[in-house]
C-alpha cells in the first residue's frame, strides 16, 4: 500500500513536470507576442514594448523563462500581466464564484442519474427505458449554447425571472430574503444546464453497469430464492453495480475547470472558465499557465484518489 502510494506519487510528479513543459512550450511557441496584443494603440511605442518585455522576462531564453515562471508560481508571486494582481488570488476569487455552480450541478447530476439509470435497467426495453435513452441522446447531441438560449427565452418570457450574471443589478439593497432568492434564481439555469449533459452520460453508464450485474448468476439465485424484487435489485445488485462509480468521485474534481467556459460565457458568470477565456483573449500567459497547471494537478489528484478509493471499496483489487 505504502509502496504503491510512493510509486504513483513519483509517477504523477513526473507526469506533472512534462505537462508543465508541454503547456509552456505550446503557449510560448505559438506565433504572436503578448507585448503586441494591441499594436494599433499609439501608446505602445517601441520603448514601452521593450520595457514590457524586460519586466516580464520575455527577452530571456525559453528555459530561463520556464524556471522563472515556475519559481514564481511555487512562491506564490506570479502576477497577471493585465492588472499586476497575484494570479493565485485572482483564481481563488473566481473559484469561489464557480463553486456554488459546481456543487449544485454535481448534486443534480448524481441525484438524478442513479434513479433514472437503475429504473431503465430494471425495465429494460420498456417504454421508460426507450424514452430516457432517446432523451439522453437528445441532451448529448444538442449544442450547449443553443439549448441554453431556448431555456433562457422560456424562463425570461414565461417566468419573468432575470437569469444573467450572478445577481440582479442593485439587488444588494433589498432585504436578505429577496437577495437570497435572487441568487438562487440566478443559480438555477446555469447549474441545470451544466448538469443535463452529465445526467445524460452518467445515467447511461449506470444503466449499462446495472444491466451487467442483473445478468449475473447470483442475482438469478436471489430471485429464485423468492426474495422480493426490490430487495434483489437494491440490496444485491445495486451494491455491486455501484463499485465503478466510487472511482468517478475522483474524476469530478477536474470538472471544476474544464467544461464551464461556454456556460459561464452565456450567463456572464464570473467564474473560473470565464477567467480562463478572458486570459486567452488577452494573452495573459501567467493566468493560462496557472489554470492549466492547477487543472493538471486536479486530474492527477483525482486519479490517485479514485485508485485509492477503489482499493478500499473492492477487496478484490490489489494494486501492486
Amino acid at each position: 500500500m505504502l509502496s504503491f502510494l510512493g510509486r504513483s506519487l513519483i509517477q504523477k510528479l513526473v507526469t506533472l513536470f512534462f505537462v508543465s513543459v508541454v503547456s509552456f512550450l505550446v503557449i510560448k511557441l505559438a506565433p504572436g507576442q503578448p507585448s503586441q496584443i494591441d499594436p494599433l494603440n499609439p501608446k505602445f511605442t517601441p520603448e514601452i514594448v521593450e520595457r514590457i518585455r524586460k519586466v516580464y522576462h520575455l527577452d530571456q531564453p525559453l528555459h530561463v523563462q520556464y524556471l522563472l515562471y515556475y519559481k514564481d508560481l511555487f512562491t506564490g508571486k506570479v502576477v497577471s500581466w493585465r492588472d499586476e494582481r497575484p494570479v493565485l488570488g485572482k483564481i481563488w476569487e473566481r473559484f469561489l464564484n464557480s463553486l456554488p455552480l459546481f456543487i449544485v450541478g454535481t448534486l443534480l447530476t448524481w441525484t438524478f442519474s442513479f434513479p433514472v439509470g437503475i429504473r431503465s435497467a430494471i425495465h429494460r426495453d420498456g417504454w421508460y427505458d426507450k424514452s430516457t435513452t432517446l432523451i439522453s441522446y437528445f441532451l448529448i447531441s444538442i449544442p450547449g449554447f443553443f439549448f441554453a438560449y431556448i431555456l433562457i427565452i422560456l424562463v425570461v418570457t414565461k417566468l419573468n425571472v432575470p437569469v444573467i450574471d450572478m445577481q440582479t443589478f442593485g439587488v444588494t439593497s433589498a432585504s436578505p430574503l429577496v437577495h437570497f432568492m435572487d441568487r438562487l434564481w440566478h443559480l438555477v439555469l446555469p447549474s441545470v444546464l451544466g448538469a443535463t449533459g452529465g445526467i445524460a452520460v452518467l445515467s447511461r453508464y449506470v444503466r449499462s453497469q446495472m444491466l451487467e450485474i442483473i445478468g449475473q448468476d447470483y442475482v438469478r439465485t436471489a430471485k429464485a430464492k423468492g426474495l422480493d424484487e426490490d430487495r434483489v435489485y437494491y440490496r444485491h445488485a445495486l451494491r455491486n453495480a455501484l463499485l465503478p462509480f466510487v472511482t468517478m468521485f475522483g474524476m469530478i474534481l477536474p470538472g471544476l475547470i474544464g467544461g464551464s467556459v461556454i456556460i459561464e460565457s452565456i450567463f456572464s458568470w464570473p467564474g473560473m472558465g470565464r477567467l480562463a477565456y478572458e486570459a486567452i483573449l488577452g494573452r495573459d500567459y501567467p493566468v493560462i499557465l496557472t489554470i492549466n497547471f492547477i487543472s493538471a494537478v486536479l486530474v492527477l489528484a483525482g486519479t490517485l484518489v479514485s485508485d485509492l478509493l477503489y482499493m478500499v471499496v473492492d477487496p478484490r483489487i490489489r494494486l501492486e
Partner: protein
Amino acid sequence: MMQPDTQRPQTVSDDVTLMPPSRSPWAETWRLLRKNRVAFTGFIVFVLFFFIALAGMALTSGAHPVLDPAQVRLQEKLRPPLSAPKLDSLKPEEIPPLGRYVLGTDDLGRDVFARMLQGAWVSLTVGFVAVGISVAIGILLGGIAGYLGRYYIQLGHLIYWTLVVCAIFLALAQSLPAALLCTLGAGAGWLFYYRRRRHPDRPVAKGLRWLIWPAISVDALIVRLVDIMLCFPSFFLILTVVALLKPSLFNIMVVIGLTSWEGTTRFVRAEFLSLREQDFVAAARALGLSDLRIIFRHIMPNALAPVLVSATLGIASAMLTEAGLSFLGFGVPPPHATWGNILSDGKDYIFDAPWLTFAPGITILVVVLAFNLFGEGMRDILNPKLRERN
C-alpha cells in the same frame, strides 16, 4: 459422396435445411442494423447528410454558384422563411434561384438556405478530417504500444531523441547557440549508434554503459504520453491553441484532431494486447511475415470495428466542438459558413429572427443525434455477445 451441384435441384429451402445460414460478416451486420430501428434511422440520416453535403458543395462553390451563400442583399435582410423576394428591388443576379428564401435571410440579406448547404460541407469536412487525424494517431500509437510494447527503449535513445527534438525547437525559436549545442549532442549520439550498428558484437565501453540501460518500455512510454494528454482539459486546450494560432478552417480541424486521440489510442492498445496472443498471429509470425504486415493485414482488421464506432461518435463531438468554438468567437472565420457560426451569428437576432438560431440549431441537433445513435447502435451490433443471442 457429394453430388455435383448441377445434378441437384437447388432451392432456397434446400440450402436452409442443409446448412446453417452462412452470411458474410458484412451481411450479418447489415441484417442486425436493419433490425435495430433507432440505429437504422441514424444511418439513413447519416447517408442523407452525406449526400446533402456533397450536393451543397456542388451548388455553392465555384465562381458562379447556383445558390450563392455570399450574395449580400441589404434591402432583403432578416426576411422570414419561405418569404418571396421583392423582385422590383433586386438586380437580376441577386434573385434567389429557388424563387423563395427557403430558410429566410440573415442580417446581411444572405440566403440562409444556401449558407446552410455550404455549412453542411464545411461541417462534414471539419468532422471527418479532425477524426481522421485523431484516429490515425490513435491507431499508430495504440498499435505500437500494443504490439511492440514489450521492447525497451535504451536511455541513450531517449536522450538522443530528446536532443534532436530540442535542437529543432530551439532552431525554430531562433536561439542558435543552444540549438548548436543540442545538435552537437545529437551528432555524438548518432555517431555512437552508427558505430554500434556497424559493429554490433563489440562490447560497449565501460564509461558509456549507462547509455544502453533499458530505461522504459515502449508501452509505458505511450501510456505516459496518453496520461500527459489527459491532464489537459480538452475544450480548454483546443480553445487555447486555436486562439493563439488564429482560427482558420485548417487550424481548427488539425487542433481538434491532435487533441482527441487519447481514447482511440487506449482501446486500440487494449485490442492489440489481446489479439497479439491469439493463435492466428502466432501462425502469421511462424510464416515469417514482417511485423508491419502482421499489424496492418492481420491484427488491424480485427480491431477496426470499435475504432469505426468511436470515429462515428468522434465526428459528432467534433461538430459540437466546432459549434462551441464558433460561439466563443474562435470558429471557422467568415468566408466559410459553418452551422456553428450561422448559429452563433444568429444569437443577436434571437427575438427578431428566430429562424437564424433554430435552423442551424435543429440541424446540428439532428445530425449529431443521428451520428450518436448510429455509432451506439453499431457498438451494440458489433458486440459478439449480442450477436449470439439474435
